[in-house]
């Protein structure tokens, strides 16, 4: 456990765990000092792990990159994982993972993830975890709440892939996701909720058709710091992927729905969108993130 953080933020949206359930927290506060962003308060507990932050982009000194790692082998039944990111005025962060996260058979007790994001004036956060890989019997429930102050930019990605290691096409159990985006006054800008069972993704009535990886992106915030529609139009033009780009409700920014035939194609879209988001916000393209 790494703790530089007061122990006052335990209360959150997660339900009380069953006995023996794992409860982990990954909480960072980013603040701007001069040209750079630094980590202020932090609290990281098992199964989360964090090494040092990285300044990968020499041309964008304010953009700090953090890999949110896990020392376990994925998500298990009744896990309770909370992430919280407070990004101070003018600070900038990129939080990503090193690889996809496997969700194992949860035997009817879903793993729970909650993410709280607070962005202050003129801040930037790209929260781009690799996809969840839903094994047979996997069940996961996630809640994401973000609040954006004026001038802030948030790139939020959320993706899942279907995979049966035995190649028998066995479905995951259930995936539930709730995302609320609000402005600094608490007004609801975007709500994106889904609740789907693995069995529903088989057959001709599957809402994802024959595709294997489903990704959602939201690029939210100040219009002058977001890519233009023409820039976004390049998404989904590669083979083995399709993408639909839309204006989000309440002028919140851009939404992108993607479906891909495999993880490589899905990653291509995610990386392209990250580059576009950073280039629009900072005027410089980011260097590739090593995974």
């Amino acid at each position, binding site marked *: 456990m790494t703790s530089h953080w007061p122990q006052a933020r335990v209360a959150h949206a997660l339900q009380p765990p069953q006995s023996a359930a794992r409860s982990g927290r990954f909480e960072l506060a980013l603040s701007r000092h001069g040209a750079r962003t630094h980590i202020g308060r932090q609290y990281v507990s098992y199964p989360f792990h964090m090494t040092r932050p990285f300044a990968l982009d020499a041309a964008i000194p304010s953009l700090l990159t953090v890999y949110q790692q896990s020392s376990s082998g994925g998500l298990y039944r009744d896990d309770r994982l909370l992430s919280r990111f407070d990004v101070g005025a003018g600070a900038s962060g990129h939080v990503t993972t090193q690889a996809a996260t496997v969700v194992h058979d949860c035997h009817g007790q879903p793993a729970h993830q909650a993410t709280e994001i607070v962005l202050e004036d003129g801040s930037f956060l790209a929260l781009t975890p690799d996809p969840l890989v839903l094994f047979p019997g996997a069940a996961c429930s996630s809640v994401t709440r973000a609040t954006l102050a004026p001038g802030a930019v948030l790139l939020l990605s959320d993706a899942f892939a279907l995979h049966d290691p035995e190649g028998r096409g066995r479905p995951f159990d259930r995936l539930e996701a709730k995302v609320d985006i609000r402005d600094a006054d608490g007004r609801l800008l975007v*709500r994106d909720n889904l609740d789907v069972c693995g069995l529903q993704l088989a057959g001709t009535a599957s809402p994802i058709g024959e595709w294997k990886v489903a990704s959602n992106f939201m690029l939210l915030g100040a219009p002058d710091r977001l890519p233009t529609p023409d820039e976004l139009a390049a998404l989904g033009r590669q083979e083995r992927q399709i993408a639909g780009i*839309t204006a989000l409700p309440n002028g919140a920014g851009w939404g992108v729905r993607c479906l891909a035939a495999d993880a490589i194609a899905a990653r291509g879209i995610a990386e392209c969108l990250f580059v576009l988001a950073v280039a629009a916000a900072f005027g410089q393209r980011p260097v590739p993130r090593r995974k």
Partner: protein
Amino acid sequence: MNHPSVQLLVAFQHADGQFPSGGFAFSQGLEASSSLAGKLGVFEFAGFVDTQIRHRWANADRVALVRAHRLAGDLDALAELDREVEASTFVEGLRSGSRRNGTALLTTHGRLGTKGAAAYRAMVRNGQACGHLAVVQGLVWQAVGLDETTAVAIGGYQMVASLATAAVRLGLIGAIDAQASIARALPEIEAAACRPLADDEALRSFTPLCEIAVAMHGTSGQRLFSN
């Protein structure tokens, strides 16, 4: 001999495809999904209808309709719900289509003198409400005396019937197949409508393939329907 109730006859009136609801202009993503089938994958009308019932109508449109019906004409609360529907509809083409369709239905009911319709229409004009279709359905069908179960049944039926009508106009199926499709969908609507709803239940949907089609189709100048 039993006689039909007035409420049943009122339900027929409002479920009738001849009722000027404005729904003929919208395909809810059917046109986009069918026309882009080569790029998106195999398209099959029955599967599309099932997806719309299970992954959109059951937990989004139906929820909004039921919550609006339960608000029993409280226009300020309806406007708040309307804003929630706006925030919960991810794709612009479906969002604007729902608003336009709802406003058309509201206009018709305003002319018919349905209680609350004209006042809510004024709120939409003033930007105080969005006028989403499911919210307006809940408002006006409650106002004409239809109970919640009947209102949900009409909403589900109209959704499927309008898809079938659009499919015929697009040349995807014939008129007889359209009726067979509706008949196949009715038990799905009943099953979807069975799940109880809380008064504050949030809207949920998951139709990425259809939403991608609508978003891609939005840039096409050659189309028959608004969405």
